[in-house]
């Protein structure tokens, strides 16, 4: 049984069916690359994995525990990079990162911030206020955030947006290092990111024609609860 897995996931956004009956599984050191056209649900899936969204059906588990049974523990093990960089314009890069170190209960925050800034090659900017950063520098600051503190799982939503080729290669290196330490990386990207042998998850395969799904679920007997063969097998 995989460490981080999801089974039979259905996701509705608003009233639109994004994907259905999706399953995934990842073990330490794995990388999963999400692919799919616009609106296929790459971001939604990452948000489901983070616990921001609740799947309409199905379950996501970490070591067989549903992630919603202990939200804090799940948050402690994951680092999430969304579309936005969450950088306060009036705070310096260091101050911006400081909060996330504190919230994760990191002991030596300044040292970790230094390491993270060196790794992303933006240490010279550590005292620069957020408003003077270019968009690429902001993205790298956001990436530095996910290096602070311990994590087992990275969920990266389009991490390469705003990054040039060199920075993308640096990111690929960071991902490789993280995997070598036993981390799980799940990411979506439009451009090629030099990650070694990622598992491909093509979301287009899970797009269900809404009409079929409606027929399926309009049947009064079906209450959305169904037996899960994987769980039964345990």
């Amino acid at each position: 049984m995989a460490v981080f897995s999801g089974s039979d996931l259905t996701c509705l956004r608003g009233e639109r069916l994004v994907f259905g009956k999706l399953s995934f599984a990842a073990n330490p050191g794995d990388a999963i690359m999400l692919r799919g056209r616009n609106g296929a649900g790459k971001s939604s899936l990452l948000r489901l994995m983070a616990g921001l969204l609740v799947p309409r059906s199905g379950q996501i588990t970490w070591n067989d525990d549903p992630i919603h049974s202990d939200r804090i523990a799940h948050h402690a093990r994951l680092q999430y990079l969304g579309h936005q960089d969450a950088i306060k314009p009036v705070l310096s890069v260091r101050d911006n990162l400081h909060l996330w170190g504190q919230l994760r209960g990191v002991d030596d925050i300044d040292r970790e911030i230094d390491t993270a800034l060196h790794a992303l090659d933006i240490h010279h900017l550590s005292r620069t206020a957020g408003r003077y950063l270019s968009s690429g520098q902001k993205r790298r600051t956001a990436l530095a955030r996910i290096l602070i503190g311990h994590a087992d799982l990275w969920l990266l939503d389009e991490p390469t947006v705003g990054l040039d080729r060199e920075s993308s290669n640096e990111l690929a290196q960071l991902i490789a290092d993280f995997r070598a330490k036993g981390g799980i990386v799940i990411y979506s990207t439009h451009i090629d990111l030099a990650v070694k042998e990622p598992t491909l998850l093509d979301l287009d395969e899970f797009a269900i024609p809404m009409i079929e799904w409606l027929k399926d679920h309009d049947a009064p007997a079906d209450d959305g609860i169904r037996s899960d063969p994987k769980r039964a097998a345990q």
Partner: protein
Amino acid sequence: MHRFAKPSVFLKLTAPILPWLAGATAMLIAAGLYFALFASPIDYQQGDTVRIMYLHVPSAWMGLFCYVGMAICGAMSLIWKHPLADICARATAPIGATFTALCLITGSLWGEPMWGTWWVWDARLTSMLILLFLYLGYIALVNAFDDPDRGSKAGSALALVGAVNVPIVKFSVDWWNTLHQPASIVRMDGPAVDPSMQLPLALMILGFTGYYFVVLILRVRLELNERRIRALHLSGMFDDTAQDAEPYDPGHNAEASQ
């Protein structure tokens, strides 16, 4: 628990009930109005104006009843995440707001000949007015989101918060009022109601409650069917006619004032 599976059950269950309920409501209100307007005695002090009571008291009852209903729906949406709960709360709000407004208007019309003023800052009047504000806040919140689902959920949370707050508001308004004008002369319910007035009053209250359920069922059915249509549109079933797809949300509170 499923948002499309459950609603189909709701549609099936309510279809046969609706005509009976509507018929009973019409008869109750007709009988109530007959007794209220013709077959009940006039008050020896108030004359014919007392007949306003038969609209006023049931409206006040409905205003409170609908708010409690909304709060219960809010709690159900919070605890069981039942999709119907949000829709019910959303459908209830305009009805409750209308009844509350009706209560205030009839009260005002009644107050003018009786007390010589349209409005008094009496505890009851004031708390009814605040209740109306709460309804309006709810309706505004629910309709302020592009995603109707998000609006309903936010509304349910607000209804619940309001329910906790309503007793506090009510209690503090009572307190505030007695502080300023002790032993208020203004009593809305007057002396013990004569038995000959009780019958029309009871009929009207029952009729109004029935009316609420009829409108509620109609509104929920409408909303469910609208959702189905939207879902079918999204599924691409009507691809060739997709251009004349109607825009969402033709005003959830527009038809309640009828």
